[in-house]
């Protein structure tokens, strides 16, 4: 913060055009006062929640099934591999074509952005489950549905949580971009609108700061889930395996 302020006072190059920290703070205050702060934050979180939850509900069971039934996995893997490196933002024109300009398009983009990493994480995690654990489960008389619930699911949970955290991060990145194009609320819209309607760069940076702070909060929430004692084995194993 101090560096930011000092750099501006020194008038260093392109930073000259940046608003001062105080101006940004007062911009956030202005947003809060007018009720826009809550409105935009809630709008963004709302889209992320729906898109992300839908991706979790589809992607994780899909990934588990693809990992468990290897043939199905091998048939679909090339398709997933082709779709995965396509930036979710490339889907925006199609999303608008299918769902029009509005919430559904933005939610769809977030859904896609989270779906691929979640599916692939779950699939690879299932494939990596130790055969002794699967065999032990079978030995105690478990068959597919019970085996998935009592052995496969807990075995992949540590990896799954890392995947959930990373894909939530992606979803949060993507919502901002989607809102710049497809909707008229949310933090992404706030940034683009502040620029278009009068070059209010204090509001632009205020939006960026809010995005960063909320992103950290989301990440910290997900990380706290990983600290459960029943999961610790999954993370120490990774450390042990490192040279």
């Amino acid at each position: 913060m101090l560096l930011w302020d000092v750099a501006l006072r020194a008038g260093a190059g392109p930073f000259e055009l940046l608003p001062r920290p105080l101006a940004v703070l007062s911009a956030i205050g202005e947003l809060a006062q007018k009720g826009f702060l809550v409105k935009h934050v809630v709008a963004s979180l709302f889209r992320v929640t729906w898109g992300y939850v839908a991706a979790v509900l589809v992607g994780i069971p899909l990934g588990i099934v693809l990992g468990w039934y290897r043939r199905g996995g091998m048939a679909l893997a090339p398709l997933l591999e082709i779709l995965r490196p396509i930036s979710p933002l490339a889907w925006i024109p199609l999303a608008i074509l299918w769902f029009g300009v509005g919430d559904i398009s933005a939610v769809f983009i977030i859904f896609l952005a989270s779906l691929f990493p979640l599916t692939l994480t779950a699939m690879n995690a299932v494939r990596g489950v130790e055969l002794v654990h699967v065999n032990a489960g079978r030995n105690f008389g478990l068959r597919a549905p019970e085996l998935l619930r009592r052995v496969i699911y807990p075995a992949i949970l540590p990896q799954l949580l890392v995947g959930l955290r990373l894909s939530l991060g992606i979803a949060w990145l993507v919502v901002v971009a989607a809102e710049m194009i497809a909707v008229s609320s949310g933090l992404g819209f706030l940034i683009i609108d502040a620029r278009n309607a009068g070059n209010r760069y204090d509001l632009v940076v205020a939006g960026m700061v809010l995005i960063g702070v909320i992103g950290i909060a989301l990440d910290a929430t997900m990380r706290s889930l990983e600290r459960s004692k029943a999961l610790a084995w999954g993370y120490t194993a990774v450390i042990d395996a490192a040279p």
Partner: protein
Amino acid sequence: MTDNPAVKVRIQDLSKSFQTNGQEIRVLENIDLDVRDGELVCILGPSGCGKSTLLNIVGGFLPASSGEVTIDGLPVREPDPRRIFVFQERGVFPWLTVEGNIGFGISGLPPKEKAARIAHYVRLVGLEGFETAYPQELSGGMKQRVEVARALAVNPDVLYLDEPFGALDSITRLVMRSELLRIWEAERKTILFVTHDIEESCQLADRVVVLSARPGSIRRVVDVDMPHPRDLSSPRYLALRDSILEEIGLAHRI
């Protein structure tokens, strides 16, 4: 069902081969073995002789290429909760506590009965005070005990142990052997115990089945008619051990 009611596990003319890169590798050849109810049989052989494969077939995890395994006269086709396979301590579920692991196979019991059964086996394997510990907080020997307790808790009639103490240090291994004998004498399960350790087989078994190198076939079955506890320096024990060493073709001097 069988001609001899005392026979528990019967392995008949069992062979197994694997396909690797289009080549057929014969792993087991014409294994015939009867294991009596309540007997502790060690299957002894050098690394790679197919003894683990044999145990996996008997356990129902692998199909035989020819021949058959029957238990109580019924052919084995898949794993069965009445016969539990104890892997090296790697088989414990790291996401469950000691209690959770031991209770894994008895989730269908009423809670009170389940708790009583878990408490009984925690005591039997000497893990009191560690009920809520996770496997990563336990030593190798303790994890091994958890796995044995988990197996015993479902009250199986046969236990398969695949080099269960192989990963333990030599002192813990000795302790675990006498623990196993104590438990076996208390519960009288039929036990098939795979090992490459001659001493171990002589210390534990009623009979030692000596396998040849690949393809594994039975070279000799040695009766160990010594009561437990065995005196490991008695001439009889030493003579027995040496005869197996000779059978395997190793001189008993290093």
